């Protein structure tokens, strides 16, 4: 992307200082004061007012941060504490100090690397087509067409279904012996595919659940961004003789770049935490282990297996932290890449 527009997010600072409140508020002289207006002590009401201005914002945002601290920040810290111990689910009060033992074990555990790789491959084959399809869909929805409202709602319906329901239906479709997909493939002369048992078919099937659920959602995000692009740019481009395709690549894409970045971030987080789809797709013990050969076990499933099948809470917490660090690492890398690319362009 060798465009000369600065990347979003690095724009000028917002000057968000509240206007209209000067230091000396002309509230008239206090009635009890006969020595004229004093400048040494501001009036009580002024103090109150200033206090109000300074602290009210905190009061307004406090509820969120209190809840965040209780349900996100505290668990995060407690999880890290657990991950340094040997703890069983049945006896959470008995903690045996292990230091970084869980982390070194995880590092040497083939199953972890397998899960990491699976998470990555499923993430790629679900995210990339999903975002490309969403982009195309949004572009189509951006044209004036009859019943556009209907199509926009329709695009969002998969997102509104629960993971469980969607995954169950897909599991039945992908059933090996009597599933509809194999039945359809049979008509064009392809033998039954063991969707659950084999690695790539299983990962494809799981990705298809993710793609089905999230494409419409991302398409609507893109659509909202596209509609914010001023018409004049397209007109100017058209006058310059740009084709439809050129307009799309030279006007639309740069216009929604920040939204694209946002959806990539969102999808990356989602892909790293992928859990429900493979669990339900596998059913029962196979769901937890991500197939008999762990062929589609994601990090989320590995965490679940360690914690809720083997009751090893320490190891499960370690996997959780590994996932967290992984996400941090991805975003640090992403920032680095962006910084380098803006410097070179």
């Amino acid at each position, binding site marked *: 992307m060798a465009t000369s527009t600065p990347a*979003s*997010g690095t724009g000028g*600072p917002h000057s968000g200082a509240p206007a209209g409140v000067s230091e000396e508020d002309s509230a008239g002289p206090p009635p009890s004061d006969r020595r004229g207006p004093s400048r040494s002590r501001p009036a009580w009401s002024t103090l109150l007012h200033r206090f109000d201005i300074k602290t009210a914002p*905190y009061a307004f945002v*406090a509820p969120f*941060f*209190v*809840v965040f*601290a*209780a349900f996100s*920040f*505290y668990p995060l810290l407690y999880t890290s504490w657990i991950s340094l111990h040997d703890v069983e*689910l*049945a*006896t*959470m009060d008995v903690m045996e100090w292990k230091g970084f033992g869980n982390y070194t074990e995880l590092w040497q555990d083939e199953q972890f690397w397998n899960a990491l790789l699976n998470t990555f491959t499923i993430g790629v084959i679900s995210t990339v087509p999903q975002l490309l399809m969403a982009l195309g869909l949004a572009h189509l929805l951006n044209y004036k067409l009859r019943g556009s409202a209907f199509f926009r709602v329709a695009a969002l319906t998969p997102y509104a279904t629960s993971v469980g329901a969607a995954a169950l239906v897909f*599991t*039945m479709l992908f*059933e*090996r*012996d*009597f599933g509809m997909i194999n039945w359809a493939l049979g008509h064009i002369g392809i033998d039954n595919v*063991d969707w*659950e*048992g*084999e690695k790539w078919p299983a990962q494809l099937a799981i990705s298809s659940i993710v793609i089905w659920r999230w494409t419409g959602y991302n398409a609507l995000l893109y659509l909202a961004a596209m509609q914010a692009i001023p018409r004049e740019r397209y007109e100017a481009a058209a006058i310059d003789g740009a084709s439809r395709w050129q307009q799309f690549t030279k006007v639309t894409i740069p216009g929604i770049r*920040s939204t694209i*970045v*946002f959806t990539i971030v969102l999808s990356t987080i989602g892909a790293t935490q992928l859990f429900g789809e493979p669990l339900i797709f596998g*059913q*029962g*013990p*196979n769901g*937890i*282990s991500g197939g*008999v*050969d762990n062929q589609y076990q994601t990090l989320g499933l590995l965490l679940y297996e360690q914690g*809720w*099948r*083997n*009751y090893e809470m320490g190891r499960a917490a370690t996997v959780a932290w590994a996932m967290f660090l992984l996400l941090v690492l991805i975003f640090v890398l992403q920032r680095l890449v962006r910084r380098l690319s803006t410097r070179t362009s």
Partner: protein
Amino acid sequence: MGRARKLFGRKAVAAASAAALALVAGCSGGDGGSNGKSKDGKTVVTMGLFGVMGIKETGLIERYMEENPDVRVEVEVAGDEQTYYTALQTRLAAGSGLKDIQGIEVARAKELVDTRADRFADLSDAGDTGHFLPWKLSQVTTGDGKIIGLGTDIGPMAVCYRKDMFEKAGLPTDREEVAKLWEGDWSQYVEVGKEFKSGFGDDGVAYMDAASGLFNAMIYGHSQQFYDKDGELIHQDNPVVKDAWNLAVEAAQDGLTAKLRQFQPGWDPGLANSSFATAVCPAWMLAHISEKAGPANKGKWDVAKAPKGANWGGSFLGVMENSPVKEEAKKLVAWLTAPEQQEHIFKEIGNFPSSEEALESDTVTGATSEYFGDAPIGEIFGAAAKEIPDEQVLGPKDGTIKDTFSQGLQLVEQGKSPEEAWNTTDERIRKAVD
């Protein structure tokens, strides 16, 4: 994505975290579950069950509520036992979300006795417990004599087979003669499978549903499977396990299995669409087969004596110590597991009684199954129950290990070498147990 800005000072953070701590402290309540009373003043007893235990399916709950008009019973059934047990463990750890009565599968009994006995009420004074099979009761009795559950059913085994398919394969169809085919040894059962395969000559139908079924049938004919009496893991060296593994592997590699996963999707359509001819069936599986194979296959299935008796599965009902309606729940469990009710469940759906009194009753010994071609299931399972080893050594991770072995056999069915599959299984078991 904007610039990081200093959002708040240190004081605000301190205030927020203090508030958060207060919130967290306020969250450590007691046990959840029902508060024991409904709006209309009735006592509410909640139950959490799994699979087809026959309590909900045979109208017993309705009858109990008729006889006890001041009680309302609410039952929640999870299909898959693994999923059910995971949720149960999580709730036990959290101390909330538990029902008043929880079902316990025999493969989990030892773990609960060892680690969770304090969470269950003692049922030794819940009605008369003298009628149970002695070994059944001992499986849920702690060292100091506390009984954490009362037995519902046991799993004596037979082999369910399709008469129509046997006929097509040129094998006998009469249940006596079929039993003779594999009398005395499970390896005979596999030999018959080879005959079936060559005689039937259609790849769309397999001889048995899954290698894991055969494996389970074989190991549960012995008193020790995965653990010895001292609680040591012996799955690696126990000849019982090794023999069962080898035979199941042979069946898998000879293409005698439909490569299905029991109790999971795929197995049910397999029953409905007749993709296999036999299944090793503990008594409680009859209900499952008749339900999933459906009326279309009525009379095609039959039951023959298995090569060797064994006990695969069976369950208990436990009452939670912290239940607000503990006494009422105990009463209900005692009633549900009483001989008459066990007989009723057997007659209705085939779950075999764990009560000695019940299994000697005429209702049970004379029972036949209409769905399975009027097979004398009372006689067949009764005889099988007598062959169950008197002592069965359980271990804390029996259920998990059993599932892991099933997965190991699936690896073989998918074409992995048996050695590799065995090593993978062993490694997973060690991970799950230590």
